[in-house]
């Protein structure tokens, strides 16, 4: 009951992809005006220009800045590799990368199962489903800042939830220890972002042809088996999309840290993005901050590339393939 035509993936010539391209072209020829095969490069111009001006050029400038000393006053002074060697020996930087990875991993582990189950459930046709789905969706409508401020107040040890439930929270000093602070960050992140991923899974689960479930039912599969052998495999590409979003989002998390912990206690939750902000806009060390920014860019790019490659996302396989 697994997906049938998988062998094409390993094939060096990728016949599957070629087939699809041909099919696509045929489809386009059928629906569009005769002779129009694919849009010209001109169509890409606005996006390319925008991306160049607001992403590539600043990125290049940041790269240049990372080899200078600059506190914002006067012109940047060349500093050679000073920022980079300092960064290499900076215990906070290494720790911040590890913390970023940890928070990202926690985010994925926490959000994927919840949003997957909620999404599949919300794709059904139960009573009250629409109302409950709308309620689950609410956190996504709030800004990350508002969410952080809200939870900050809710978790106040003297006047918030912990004061009402000491059996669960102890003395309520959640943000006073490393584990507690990381736990709160992961939880608040999950609370805010699970609805988005639920939505993605819901849409995708809705798109699974009912015939598959019906066929499975005829074969005698119960709900659990259907979920395991029909729904999950069909959601595979969605899972990749959702995870890539979580990872990229996790690596650039910022507001929750700024408002909930400010990197504390000590440097226990100083993740890379927040460390960059501290160096740049608190300490006015724009050279050092640029170096951190570049590290973050490189790490995020590598992680994204690796995920895309490993998951076969680059082959753009449609979720409904094999029907």
């Amino acid at each position, binding site marked *: 009951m697994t997906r049938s035509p998988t062998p094409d993936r390993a094939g060096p010539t990728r016949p599957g992809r070629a087939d699809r391209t041909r099919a696509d072209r045929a489809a386009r020829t059928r629906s569009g005006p005769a002779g129009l095969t694919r849009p010209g490069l001109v169509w890409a111009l606005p996006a390319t220009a925008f991306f160049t001006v*607001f992403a590539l050029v600043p990125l290049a*400038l940041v790269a240049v800045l990372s080899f200078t000393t600059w506190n914002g006053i006067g012109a940047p002074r060349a500093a050679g590799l000073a920022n980079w060697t300092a960064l290499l020996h900076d215990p906070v930087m290494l720790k911040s990368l590890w913390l970023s990875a940890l928070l990202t991993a926690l985010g994925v582990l926490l959000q994927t199962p919840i949003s997957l189950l909620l999404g599949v459930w919300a794709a059904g046709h139960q009573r009250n489903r629409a109302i409950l789905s709308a309620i689950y969706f609410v956190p996504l409508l709030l800004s990350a800042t508002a969410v952080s401020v809200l939870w900050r107040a809710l978790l106040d040890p003297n006047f918030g939830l912990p004061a009402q439930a000491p059996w669960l929270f102890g*003395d309520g000093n959640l943000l006073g220890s490393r584990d507690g602070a990381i736990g709160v960050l992961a939880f608040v992140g999950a609370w805010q972002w699970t609805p988005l991923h639920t939505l993605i899974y819901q849409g995708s689960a809705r798109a699974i042809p009912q015939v598959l479930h019906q066929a499975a039912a005829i074969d005698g599969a119960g709900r659990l088996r259907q979920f395991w052998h029909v729904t999950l495999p069909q959601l595979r590409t969605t899972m990749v999309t959702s995870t890539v979003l979580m990872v990229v989002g996790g690596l650039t998390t910022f*507001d929750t840290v700024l408002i909930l912990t400010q990197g*504390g206690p000590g440097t226990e939750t100083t993740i890379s993005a927040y460390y960059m902000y501290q160096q*740049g806009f*608190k300490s006015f060390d724009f050279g050092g901050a640029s170096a951190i920014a570049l590290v973050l860019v490189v790490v995020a790019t590598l992680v994204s590339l690796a995920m895309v490659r490993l998951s076969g996302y680059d082959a753009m396989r449609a979720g409904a393939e094999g029907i």
Partner: protein
Amino acid sequence: MRHVSTALHRRASRPSRPSRPSRPSRAPGPSRTSLAATAVVCAAALSLVTGCGSGSAGGASGSGVIHVLVYGDAGNTVEKRIVDTFNKTSKVRAVLDTIPGADYQTKLQTVINNPQAPDVFFNWGGGSIAPFVKAGLLMPLDDMIAKDPALKADFLPSVFNTAVVDGKSYGVPMRGTQPVLLFDNKKVLADAGLTPPTTWDQLLDEIRTLKAKGITPIALGGGDQWPELMWFEYLFDREAGPGLFQKAVGGDKSAWNSPESTKALGLLKQLIDAGAFGTTYDSVKFTDGGSPALLAKGKAAFELMGSWEYATQQSANPDFAKDQLGYGAFPGVADGQGDPNDLVGNTNNFYSVRSTTKYPDAVAQFLKLMYSDEFVKAQLAIGNLPTTTNTPDFLSGSASPAYSQYQYDLVKRAPSFQLSWDQAYPPSAMTPIHQAVQRFFDGQLDANGFIQAMQALPTP
């Protein structure tokens, strides 16, 4: 939503600490996916020296105009009024530009050395202007003072000295003073049969009594980090006198290693270990109303805080502020070298002058208004306490006369008024200071670790 509203209020009533990273008022923060993009765009904009959208400071001061740049908040009504008064008589027109709160220092940093730089700008003295002085961007005011001695003599010396760098004056006080005081809940103290402590030993005794009654002796917003710093500032002053920190911030790192330093840290450690702050202070903030609520609701007996605590309580818990909020000086330490009259906190805000100004005479005329009767009355009316020598004449017009009078006398009597450490050091030292302070309170750093962290700080 009490927390949020107090936080917002905080922004209005406490202009002197824009550097505070914690405030939710920094909202709206960048969404997490756009953060990196925003950062690089900003960096790019900075590198082109266009300033990150600081349009309000724009306009070259070429056409008989001086630009006055201030921190944008509720206090601007007075600045606006003073500028209007100036413009009534001056040929050179003054234009008031404001940069909203939290972004002030960052934007000032980008605009200070380009053609759009203001002629006169708001700052916190000390470390906030030291890098500018070092870069030769500021005009020493000593010539102006020679022509008009009142420009220095009409201000309280302990305040004026905050903006003196390397023996030269670079700033004139232009708002209100904010000393750090030991606030208390009168009712809690009375119920326990206690009075505000005047000595360290008395404070320790009272902590034992309060703990036995199940009350957190001292409210502390450790989540903000800087409220913890205030305890270091006072204990170092009481134990070693103001000289130790002056030496240290001047670049003599051995000062941190002195016996007084170890002793001050020992006293603080003793206080922490005695449970004076309870166990949850790391999760409590001042800026979101957490620690002031502890004091107001009688769950804590004391809070060490800047004079803005009064305004905070007035807005969040008016009845408490009126009847139950007590205030006093930080207790003295037996055998300590520091004078119990010494103060720490924010001495005042200052106007400094960019050396490239085309109209130094007009600027001098403008600065003279900072000790005028009109200025003092206007500041008192909005709750600020100016530090001019003529202030006592108008204290009856203050929003809370008794409190203003108490503070004024305290500041006037103080042999030393130490600017907060995180403001006395250059901005690059702020994060390391806050981290070291928090880690000491958490027990992650011992006295030696703290001393090493302080010695690693960059000095002006």
